[in-house]
């Protein structure tokens, strides 16, 4: 039932606007109780999970297709869920301050909470299909959040870009998940974890891996799909703090970690993950220092962190997995805090440009302190959690089995660039001489400070006392593929190579920070090269898509109904004909036994149809169709279908009424086409008619399969309590079909009514602004 409690967040999201009307600015505090409650519940699972007993909450969803709502709470999902719900609570509070009095705050809250629930579902789901559903939900909600300022063209563009990239990846992911499920013989993640060997040997392993990784890489902004993440900074800052640092972009990382025990450890896995991860890590760090916009700086450093995490999963040793967990936690804490600080700066000073700020420490001392602590963790300096994560990362790169030197170089470069970024973000705005900013800065409201302060404090606290994490890290590491682990995190490992590398990185990073302004000018020379990066590829694909759409629209959707028809029919005839003559040798059954009266009825039918085509007047054509309809009714009578006969007769009658009402308000028949056109149409029509005839003869000549209706014939009376089998099928055996059909009927009626109702603006094609009551039907 906990599943429903978590998913009831969707309901809560729907009621957010109503709550806002009642509670006003206190809404966010109230809403934050929801993730807070989830945090409490998750913490209650802690002892069991750390004790090595994952919690499995079973619940069926679509039992017929093996789709469950089962929640799996092991170390990995516990950590992710805690981050999502915990940071989510702070982000809600923060958003209340950041968007205080914003016209669209209720809408924002709806989407944010829906996103939060989707994300929780994603990390807690045990079923592949359920996981995918939540995965797509996060793509959609994040699209809405990035495009929150929908009047801004660049925000819309960034939102669409994020959506395209992640949804295209989602499509690959779906294919990968289907392959994974069918190859592994189960849709449950828990089950699949135990089938690693069979999966790695499976012939579908490589395509499966590529599809799954495409999904994960696009979501987690890995090179060359990294470009959408910095662009997504068009979103309001609370969104950036939440989605683009702590949660959504980590969904791909989560998936890869989840799949590590089932698919990891192979040559392909290690090669792809460590190279792509290292490349992303370096690209992110390098591109970061080009920017002066504080959100872009942080966004690119997020790309760096995501790359590092992927690389660590690729290395895959026990040490690397420990480093993965610690780095992940450290990054979520400091990046959440730093983004919220960035939002505070933007909110209070009115600019996002770090070069336009300075000396703010006297005006906002608390914010300064928070920023400093979080940035120290980003830089990987003691005594913060980020330091432990980075040392462990260096350590595991040193022991990587593949590409050791390359990874080491890239990791070192990324490290000193990151130190420079940390210094830029934490020192530039707060120290130095005071500068004039658009607004006069002062400390933000407490609701906005609480989140970053708590997250920064956690970075410090866990850095000083990392032992508290031992149990959780161990549970996770064992859960994601390390055979057995005995984890002891410590701040101080003595003087070793990683420490020396950190020292060297610190010196280099500091130098870059001191010469940053000059360096930026130098890097500007690289702009044309960077402009040709993957984003240019994305733009080219979009342009090409539009061109192709234009071309095919002109070619196929040319507005001539008969062209659509002729193309469709000829393709059909071609395909069926091909199957007929090249794939199968059809057996035609032409044995015939016909009574004279039956032949007469069939002859009337044909005569009616042909006459309808030849008649020059509408009335004669309608009468001919009527003859055909009544012959069909007779056929039903002769061949044991009383219900059909009655229905056909009644419909024929009503059709006449309908045509009387409509057809004769329409123009007379006109001969509009040239003889050659008629001949062409005759050929198309004849080809189709011949195809249908041959198809039916082939079906009759083919092997008779047992009728599924035998069951219905035998059980109509015993089960359905009815003697008319056709009716029992309609209202009992296949009642769901019938339900669908009467809905179609109802829709047709509504369509008819709507079209005639908006009749008033005759000839102008405009709809009346106000419905009139005179023809309301009452």
């Amino acid at each position, binding site marked *: 039932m906990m599943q429903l409690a978590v998913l009831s967040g969707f309901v809560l999201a729907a009621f957010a606007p109503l709550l806002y009307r009642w509670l006003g600015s206190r809404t966010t505090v109230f809403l934050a109780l929801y993730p807070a409650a989830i945090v409490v519940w998750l913490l209650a699972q802690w002892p069991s999970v750390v004790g090595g007993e994952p919690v499995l909450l079973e619940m069926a969803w679509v039992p017929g297709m093996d789709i469950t709502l089962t929640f799996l709470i092991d170390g990995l999902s516990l950590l992710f869920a805690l981050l999502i719900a915990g940071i989510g609570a702070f982000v809600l509070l923060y958003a209340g301050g950041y968007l205080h009095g914003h016209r669209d705050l209720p809408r924002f809250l709806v989407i944010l909470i829906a996103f939060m629930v989707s994300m929780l579902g994603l990390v807690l789901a045990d079923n592949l299909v359920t996981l995918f559903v939540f995965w797509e939900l996060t793509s959609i909600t994040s699209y809405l959040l990035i495009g929150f300022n929908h009047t801004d063209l660049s925000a819309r563009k960034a939102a669409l870009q994020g959506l395209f990239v992640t949804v295209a990846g989602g499509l690959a992911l779906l294919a990968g998940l289907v392959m994974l499920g069918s190859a592994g013989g189960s849709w449950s993640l828990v089950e699949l974890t135990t089938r690693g060997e069979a999966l790695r040997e499976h012939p579908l392993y490589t395509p499966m891996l590529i599809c799954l990784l495409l999904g994960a890489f696009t979501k987690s902004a890995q090179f060359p799909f990294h470009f959408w993440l910095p662009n997504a900074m068009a979103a309001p800052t609370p969104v950036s703090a939440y989605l683009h640092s702590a949660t959504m972009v980590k969904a791909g990382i989560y998936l890869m970690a989840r799949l590590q025990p089932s698919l990891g450890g192979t040559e392909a896995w290690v090669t792809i993950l460590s190279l792509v991860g290292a490349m992303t890590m370096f690209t992110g760090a390098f591109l970061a220092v080009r920017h002066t916009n504080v959100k872009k700086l942080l966004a690119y450093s997020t790309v760096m962190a995501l790359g590092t995490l992927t690389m660590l999963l690729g290395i895959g040793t026990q040490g690397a997995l420990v480093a993965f967990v610690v780095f992940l936690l450290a990054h979520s804490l400091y990046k959440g805090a730093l983004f919220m600080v960035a939002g505070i700066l933007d909110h209070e000073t009115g600019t996002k440009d770090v070069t336009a700020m300075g000396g703010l420490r006297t005006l906002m001392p608390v914010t300064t302190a928070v920023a400093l602590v979080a940035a120290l963790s980003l830089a990987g300096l003691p005594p913060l959690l980020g330091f432990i994560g980075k040392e462990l990362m260096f350590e595991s790169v040193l022991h990587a089995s593949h590409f050791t030197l390359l990874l080491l170089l890239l990791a070192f470069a990324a490290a000193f660039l990151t130190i420079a970024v940390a210094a830029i973000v934490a020192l530039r705005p707060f120290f130095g001489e005071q500068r004039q900013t658009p607004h006069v800065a002062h400390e933000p409201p407490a609701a906005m400070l609480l989140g970053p302060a708590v997250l920064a404090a956690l970075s410090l606290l866990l850095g000083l006392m990392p032992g508290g994490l031992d149990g959780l890290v161990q549970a996770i590491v064992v859960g994601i593929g390390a055979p057995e682990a005995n984890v002891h995190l410590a701040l101080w490992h003595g003087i070793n190579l990683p420490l020396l590398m950190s020292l060297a990185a610190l010196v280099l990073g500091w130098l870059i920070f001191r010469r940053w302004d000059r360096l930026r000018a130098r890097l500007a020379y690289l702009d044309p090269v960077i402009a040709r990066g993957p984003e240019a590829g994305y733009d080219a694909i979009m342009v090409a898509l539009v061109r192709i759409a234009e071309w095919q629209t002109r070619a196929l959707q040319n507005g001539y109904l008969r062209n659509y028809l002729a193309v469709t029919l000829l393709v059909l005839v071609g395909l069926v004909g091909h199957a007929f003559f090249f794939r199968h040798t059809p057996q035609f059954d032409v044995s015939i036994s016909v009574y004279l009266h039956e032949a007469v009825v069939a002859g009337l039918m044909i005569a009616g149809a042909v006459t309808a085509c030849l008649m020059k007047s509408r009335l004669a054509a309608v009468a001919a169709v009527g003859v055909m309809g009544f012959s069909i009714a007779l056929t039903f009578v002769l061949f044991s279908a009383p219900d059909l006969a009655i229905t056909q007769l009644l419909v024929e009658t009503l059709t006449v009424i309908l045509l009387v009402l409509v057809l004769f308000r329409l123009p007379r028949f006109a001969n509009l086409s040239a003889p050659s056109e008629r001949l062409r149409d005759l050929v198309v029509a004849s080809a189709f008619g011949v195809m249908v005839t041959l198809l039916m003869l082939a079906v009759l000549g083919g092997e008779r399969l047992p009728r599924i209706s035998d069951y219905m014939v035998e059980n109509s009376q015993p089960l359905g309590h009815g003697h008319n089998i056709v009716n029992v099928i309609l*209202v009992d055996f296949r*009642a769901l079909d019938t*339900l669908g059909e009467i809905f179609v009927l109802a829709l047709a009626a509504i369509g008819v009514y709507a079209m005639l109702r908006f009749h008033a603006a005759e000839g102008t094609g405009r709809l009346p602004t106000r419905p009139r009551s005179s023809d309301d039907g009452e």
Partner: protein
Amino acid sequence: MVRSGTLILNVAARFLLPLQLLFSLFLLLRGHDEPGGGFIAGLVAAGAFALYLFAFGLGALRAMIKVSPRDLVGLGLLFALGSTLPAWWGGEPFFTSQWWTVPIIGFKASTPLIFDIGVYLVVLGSVLTAITALMTTDRDPDA
């Protein structure tokens, strides 16, 4: 274009309507055992009303049936959907048919019958919606 009818049509429509409606109910109720059922009965009833409509015009028809044909459609869908629910009470899967016998007359009531009544109403309502909508604009193009 469609004028209120002649004397013969008027008289015929007046007397035939109740008979036709009774007949449609008969077809509806016996449909489970003999040819008939909601679709057929709905069409018969729609035909009956159409005859009346041609004889006496739209106003008279509206005055007689009181409810809008679109409401019949909605009501029919509600009946059909409602018939899916009783199975849930008994813990059976959605849409499982339920049967009860009305004591004195020995009439068998069931969810399939409720469903069929829903079909009847939807068919009747849809056809009448189409026909009355066309009549409306026929008589008064600006309405």
